[in-house]
C-alpha cells in the first residue's frame, strides 16, 4: 500500500515514487540511508574539522594527534553542525524525492501542521521535562553493563573536556545552536521523518518504531547511553505517528538537548561529574515521572483522537 497525502489520487507508473518503480522496499531505503548518511556525516565532518584545524594553525601535520578534535570543541561543534545540516538535513530531504510522490516531500516527512499541532508541541515540551528522571534511570541501568576500564576512561576524558568548555567563556546561544537546534531538526528529519516513514511502508508501525529507535540509539556511538537514547527514539517515533506531524518530536528533541546543555552549563559539577558514576536516581522521582508521563501520553491520545491523523498512517506491510 502506498503512503499518500492524497489517498484518492490513483497511482500510475508516472507518479509512483522512484523507489516503488524500481522495487526498493521501504526498509531497504530507510536502512540504506541510515548507514549512508552516517558514513558521509562521519567522514565529511572529520575531514572538515581537520581542514579547519590545519588552516587556523591549531594543528600541523608534524604534531597531528587524534585527540586534537576534543581539545578544540568549537571546531568539533562547527564541523559537526555543517555535517548534520548537509547530510542529515538537506541531503535527506533530497533523498526523500526517491521515496515520495512528486510534490509530496513535506507530506512524506510529516513536516506539516494543523490545528492540533501547537497543542502537541506544547505537550511534547512538558513530556520531555517530565520524563527526565526516567531517562536518567535508564542511563543508570545502561551503566550497569560491564564496560572496559579503557572505554569508560575514554568517555570520561571526553566529558571532562566538555565540562571545561561549558564552564569556560563559551557563547551560550551558539552552543545551544550546535547542540540543540541543529540536531533537533536534522536528526528528526532523518530518523522520524525519513527512516520511520520508510520503515512503516514495509512493516507494522510498532516494529518501525522499535527499529528506528534502536538505530537512533546506535547512531550516537555512545555505548553508555544506548538504552536511554533508543527508548527516547522510540518515544519520539510514537509521538510522530500518533500526531501525524514531525514538529512535536523536533520540540521534544530540542528540549532534551537544550535542557542538558543548560543544566551542564549552570550545574556542571552535578551534570557531568555524576553522569559516569552510575548513581541510581531516587525511585520516588522515577515513579512520579512514570505517572506524569502516562497522563501526558493520555493527553496526546485525546488531542489526536478527533482528527486521528496518526491512524491514517497505520498501514499493512507491503506484500512480497
Amino acid at each position, binding site marked *: 500500500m502506498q503512503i499518500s497525502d492524497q489517498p484518492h489520487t490513483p497511482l500510475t507508473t508516472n507518479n509512483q515514487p522512484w*523507489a516503488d518503480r*524500481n*522495487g*526498493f*522496499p521501504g526498509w*531497504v531505503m530507510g536502512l*540504506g540511508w541510515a*548507514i*549512508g548518511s552516517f558514513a558521509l556525516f562521519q567522514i565529511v565532518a572529520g575531514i572538515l574539522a581537520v581542514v579547519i584545524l590545519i588552516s587556523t594553525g591549531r594543528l600541523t601535520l608534524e604534531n597531528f594527534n587524534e585527540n586534537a578534535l576534543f581539545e578544540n570543541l568549537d571546531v568539533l561543534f562547527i564541523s559537526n553542525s555543517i555535517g548534520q545540516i548537509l547530510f542529515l538535513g538537506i541531503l535527506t530531504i533530497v533523498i526523500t524525492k526517491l521515496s515520495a510522490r512528486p510534490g509530496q516531500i513535506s507530506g512524506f516527512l510529516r513536516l506539516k501542521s494543523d490545528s492540533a499541532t501547537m497543542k502537541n508541541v506544547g505537550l511534547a515540551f512538558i513530556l520531555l521535562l517530565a520524563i527526565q528522571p526516567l531517562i536518567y534511570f535508564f542511563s543508570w541501568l545502561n551503566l550497569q553493563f560491564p564496560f*572496559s576500564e*579503557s572505554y569508560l576512561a575514554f568517555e570520561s576524558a571526553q566529558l571532562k573536556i566538555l565540562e571545561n568548555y561549558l564552564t569556560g567563556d563559551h557563547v551560550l546561544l551558539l552552543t545551544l545552536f550546535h547542540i540543540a537546534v541543529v540536531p533537533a531538526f536534522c536528526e528528526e528529519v532523518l530518523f522520524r521523518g525519513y527512516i520511520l516513514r520508510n520503515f512503516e511502508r514495509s512493516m507494522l508501525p510498532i516494529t518501525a518504531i522499535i527499529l528506528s529507535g534502536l538505530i537512533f540509539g546506535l547512531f550516537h556511538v555512545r555505548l553508555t547511553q544506548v538504552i536511554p537514547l533508543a527508548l527516547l527514539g522510540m518515544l519520539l517515533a510514537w509521538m510522530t505517528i500518533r500526531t501525524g506531524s514531525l514538529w512535536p518530536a523536533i520540540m521534544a528533541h530540542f528540549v532534551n538537548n537544550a535542557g542538558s546543555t543548560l543544566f551542564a552549563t549552570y550545574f556542571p559539577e552535578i551534570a557531568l561529574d555524576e553522569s559516569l558514576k552510575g548513581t541510581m536516581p531516587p525511585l520516588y522521582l522515577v515513579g512520579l515521572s512514570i505517572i506524569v508521563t502516562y497522563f501526558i501520553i493520555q493527553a496526546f491520545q485525546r488531542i489526536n483522537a478527533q482528527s486521528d491523523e496518526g491512524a491514517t498512517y497505520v498501514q499493512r506491510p507491503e506484500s*512480497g
Partner: protein
Amino acid sequence: MEQNNPFISSALIVGFIIAIISSAASLFLSYSVIGSEPGTSTMIMMSAVGLVSCLIGIFAGMFAVRHHVKMFNQPLAMGRGAVIGLTAGAFVAIFATAISLLWMLIDPAFTDKLMEAMVRSMESIPGAEAQVDAIYEQFQSAKTFAGQAKSLGINLLVMGALNAITGILGVKFFAPKPADTDAL
C-alpha cells in the same frame, strides 16, 4: 513480467562460498604475516588482510543475483537485487565470523601468534611504540564475546550495505530485460 521469486537459497549458497574464499585468503595472508620477518612490509601485508577479504566479500551480492537469475530467468527490479545482495552480504558476515571462531578451535595459538608478529613488526618501526598497546587491546577485545559481537555487527552493516550496491550492479549485468523473457 517481474516476480518476487524466493532468493534465500541463492544468498545462502553464494554467501557461504564467498565467506569460505574470503576466510581462506585472510588466513593465508595472516599466516604469511606470522612467518615473515618483522618490518614495514609485514604491517602492509597485515593491512592487506582486511582489504582483500573485504574485496572478495563485496562480490557476494552480484553473484547471488546471478545465481538467482540463472534459477528463474526472470527480469529483476533493482530493489530486489539490493535485497538479495544485502542478504548475501549478511550471510558472508555471519559465515566468516563462524569460520574465524572455528579456526580458534583448530589452531588455538593463531591469535596470539598473529598478535606477537604484529607487535614485533610495530616495535621494529621507529616512533610506533605507542601503537603496541593499541594492538594488545584490539586482540584482547577480539577474544571476548562482546568483541566478537561488535565485530559481527560492524561486518553485517558494512557487508550488507556494500553487497546491496553490488546486488544492484548484478541486476544491471545479469538480469534479463523484460523484452528478453517475453521473446522466450
